[in-house]
């Protein structure tokens, strides 16, 4: 099979570039900790009462680590907090530099979960437990949007995470 010299050199260059890209991906995952959700557990979406999802909420695991158990359903996230914004959507507060593991499932159809400006992005598929760990380094208010189409009020399925600076927190 005849391959032109220029074309062969071009192919070698393509292979090198792709190799460098892929090495960068592996480094991103292993060195910088950008991880994807992975297969964890099954859960019956019609019988969540028998599971930890019966009581959504933020649990303090100590050492700046938290677990947020959330149930997604048409068209709201059950976050387990008692604080709401002016549109009636939940607000979750976490201290800055906390490491939060989000454990989420759906009670009905497939939803999405995306925290703006963070590497938090998951499909919330009924029957599956979705899990991702995020460290909040910058104080501020972050919009959390359902990004998978889920019917009529999909656009308004959201909640807010407020990352609080330690300095402004009331002393315990």
């Amino acid at each position: 099979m005849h391959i032109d010299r220029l074309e062969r050199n071009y192919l070698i260059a393509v292979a090198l570039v792709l190799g460098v890209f892929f090495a960068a991906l592996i480094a991103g995952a292993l060195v910088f900790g950008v991880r994807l959700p992975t297969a964890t557990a099954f859960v019956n979406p019609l019988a969540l009462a028998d599971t930890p999802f019966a009581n959504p909420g933020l649990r303090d695991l100590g050492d700046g680590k938290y677990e947020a158990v959330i149930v997604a359903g048409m068209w709201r996230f059950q976050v387990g907090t008692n604080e709401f914004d002016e549109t009636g959507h939940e607000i979750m507060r976490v201290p800055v530099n906390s490491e939060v593991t989000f454990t989420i499932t759906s009670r009905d159809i497939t939803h999405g979960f995306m925290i703006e400006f963070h590497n938090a992005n998951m499909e919330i598929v009924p029957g599956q437990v979705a899990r991702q760990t995020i460290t909040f380094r910058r104080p501020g208010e972050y919009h959390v949007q359902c990004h998978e189409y889920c019917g009529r009020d999909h656009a308004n399925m959201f909640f807010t995470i407020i990352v609080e600076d330690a300095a402004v927190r009331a002393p315990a």
Partner: protein
Amino acid sequence: MQAVSPAPKSEANILTFPRLGMLSSERALIGAHILVALLAISIGLLLGPAQAYRRAPALQWEIPVFSYYYQALTLHGVLNALVFTTFFIVGFSYFVVQRSLQRALASVTVGWIAWVLMFVGTLLAGYAMLTGQANVLYTFYAPMLAHWTFYLGLALVIVGSWVAGGDIFATYLLWRRANPGKAAPLAVFATVANFIMWISASLGVAIEVLTMLLPLSLGIVQTTDPQVSRILFWFFGHPLVYFWLLPAYTSWYTMMPIQFRVPIFSETLARVAFIMIMIVSIPIGVHHLFVDPGVSEVAKVMHSLLTFTVSVPSFLTAFNIAATLERAGRARGSTGLLGWMLKLEWSNPVMVSQILGMMMFIIGGVTGLMNASFTLNVALHNTTWVPGHFHTTLAGGVFMTYMSILYWMLPIMRGRKLFSRPLATAQAYTWFVGMLLFGVSMGRAGLEGASRRTDVGSMQVISEYWAPWLNITAVAGTILLISIVLLFIVVIGTWFFSKGDPEDPAPITTAAPSSAPLWTERWSLWIALIVISNVVMWGPVLFEGLNFVNGFWSVGYPMN
């Protein structure tokens, strides 16, 4: 042992096709496909700008006729990406195979049976969508439920395309029997490769629709598994985009050299590119499931690696086509490093639409590699970046090449001159500018966190970070609306009103160059590789997704 090649069985099978017209047997069957394709986009395209206006925070206009955003979005996706493409590709493939092999289809009757299946399927799915009983978008993720006619309709479109593929295979095999030891023309090779890939891949969605969604919508079964249905869908979903792309590659590799009267730079590597796409386009679909909970990280990394591999044939194509274009420019007397680019017939709609489409496809390819990078995908998944990306591939490279094909095929089919070359050229330029602006602004909005498939017009909270970029998509939509109107004028004018004879002959070659290697047509080997690679790459994913202990435990939710 030296095989003695028998003389061709019957020279009577060789048909002569008119350069500037169609045989009546071609005209009816191919015309029926092109007609349905054009009717589908006459609704599907117009809904595009309407959605851009709805999604621009500064406007938030209600969509005309289909005021429910998700109904309009479903129609836009299904009509443009599934109905238009499938009918156009089948019609185009019939044309390519008959002309290149100089023989009629193995069976015109079977061709019509396939058309009827696909047409009835389109009517059924259209009924469900137009009556608002299938607001499930064109990915129809379970356990959202549409009316059963939607699923049956889509299944009929797919089964019809399989019948069409069978007719194309039979035509090729009959030709091969009559021409032993000869390589098929490249366009036929590409068409056969495309339908082998398509039939292999669409098995996934056929199983999903026929065993899960259709029975659920009819109430025959009560439960389903959303993760398994997503896995089956994306077994099909990525090769689907290559099914759209390969006819465009066929035009770039086999027609553009004829239109420019230069030989292709390397036919062998063109064949290698088609073989690689046919095999590698399926075992990579997990890159659509990077943030799914039910798929392991290991599978995600493996599919990411193979997705990088499937970019190689597109890199090869970029080189091969650019080298061919450079030859064309130099043959027209250009000198210097880049002077050939100026000599490429920038006022001929057939050439302009195709070349601008290629240029936009480069952006689509690069952004595609970014999507395939799993660490970047966490920032991009389900943001408007994704539709930004595939509007530069499907609505860019692919659609503009299809319009380039239409601008020579429609005149030949109707026996009329193209209605207006300047308007057709203007259509290509406005489309390029509008879609480029749309792609860039959707991409930027996505990086700022705008989510796709979201009715911005009904949102309570709009972010100042992405709002300006979505406002720009409304500008892009306006430019595209102008382009759509130009397209309609040229198509309707050419179909009914234009006077004079067609100007551009069908750019078809009937012989493979002597250099075309025969080993590339060992289809049984390629099919075996398709089977093996998918068992290895998809088998574990499906096994992991299935809940063997508890079975399916999601119920359906009608999306009316």
